[in-house]
Structures are given as structure tokens and as C-alpha cells.
């Protein structure tokens, strides 16, 4: 299955600033997904990123707040903009693999906004 490297693993940011999270995959994948996991809660899909097209965002998430880039089939970034304490969460990238069929996750980025 695919191996995902996600950076940074954690960060503490001032409110009003932005954080960009990188997700590097060791093989080419069509679909990449970005999730948020708030404290004590489950994973919520933010958006789906496909190479060469704009990301598709889930209800409640907007591009201005969570811009995503997908320059090639092995890399994506998620930026969390204009940070507020409510953005303190774990952010995870995920890829869909065909063989074996499933979804692999990165190790996550723990963001704390102060």
C-alpha cells in the first residue's frame, strides 16, 4: 500500500496566521483527501483533491479558508488560513489505493492555535 509522509507533524500558530501542511506519497495516486479530526471527535472530510483540477469541498468548508494545491500525482498541500482557536485539530491526508483497495492515511498534523 502507499506510504504517506505528512509535514509538519505538529505546530503551534498564532491566531490570524496560516499553516500549510504538506502530503507526499511514494506512488502516483488519483485521489487525495484531506480530513479534520477535532478533539474527541471523528474524522470529517474537508475536500477531495485531484491533479489538474480544483478541489471539491464538503459542506461547511470553503476554499478561502482551506485552499488546496495538487500540482502532481504524488503531492498536495492544505493551507488553513486566518487561524482561530477553533481550528485547533488534527489534519490528515489520505489517498485511495487500488491494490490493495482501500484508503491510507498520513500520520497527521496536530495544529494548536493560540
Amino acid at each position, binding site marked *: *500500500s502507499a506510504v504517506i509522509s505528512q509535514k509538519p507533524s505538529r505546530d503551534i500558530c498564532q491566531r490570524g496566521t496560516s499553516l500549510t501542511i504538506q502530503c507526499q506519497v511514494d506512488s502516483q495516486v488519483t*485521489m487525495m483527501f484531506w480530513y479534520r479530526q477535532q478533539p474527541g471527535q471523528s474524522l470529517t472530510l474537508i475536500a477531495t483533491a485531484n491533479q489538474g483540477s480544483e478541489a471539491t469541498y464538503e459542506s461547511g468548508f470553503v476554499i478561502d479558508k482551506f485552499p488546496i494545491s495538487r500540482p502532481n500525482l504524488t503531492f498536495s498541500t492544505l493551507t488553513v488560513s486566518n487561524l482561530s482557536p477553533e481550528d485547533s485539530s488534527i489534519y490528515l491526508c489520505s489517498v485511495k489505493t487500488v491494490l490493495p483497495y482501500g*484508503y491510507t492515511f498520513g500520520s*497527521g498534523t496536530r495544529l494548536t492555535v493560540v
Partner: protein
Amino acid sequence: EDQVTQSPEALRLQEGESSSLNCSYTVSGLRGLFWYRQDPGKGPEFLFTLYSAGEEKEKERLKATLTKKESFLHITAPKPEDSATYLCAVHNGRTNFGNEKLTFGTGTRLTIIP
């Protein structure tokens, strides 16, 4: 809307004490039900994919089963290293870009006491 409910929220077992975790789901067209293990500070680690009612899969001390409405993760003679949060997710059956997604439950936090 797809829904996944996991129970119990938390479970404490003595080492060697077998039990089961429950995942109840409603989805418009199940393409797959996934079980993941998540350790603190890490991303979800894939365990099983189940596709149709009656299917069972095993890995070491874990066995996952599936019916039309729920899935069980049975853990036999658990060890302290099995302590983790176990997540269940369903695939919504759509494969076109922007509409494919996993819906996760909130997880069961399992603690195995030596």
C-alpha cells in the same frame, strides 16, 4: 445522509478478556466498510475492508464481521498492545470525483489492562 454509530465509546478489558466492538451504519449504497486502528498522535492504520453481508476477515486477535446493518470487531484474548481507538467507516458507493467519501464513526477507545 450516511451515518455511522460506534459503541461503546470506551471499553476497558483485562488482558485475555475477549469482547466485541459494534459499528451500526446507514448508507445509500455500501461499497465497503472499513475498520481502522488509531494510536494517540498517529493517523488511522488500515485493518479490514468488508464488502457484503456475511463476510468475515481475521488478523491476529481481531475478526471483523458484517451484516446489512452493522459490523462487529471481535477481539480475542487481547494484549495491552491492542489498546487503541478503533474506527469504523463506510464508503458511500460513489466513485466519481468529488462525490466519493468515507463517513467515519466516533470510534471506540479500547484499553487492555495487564
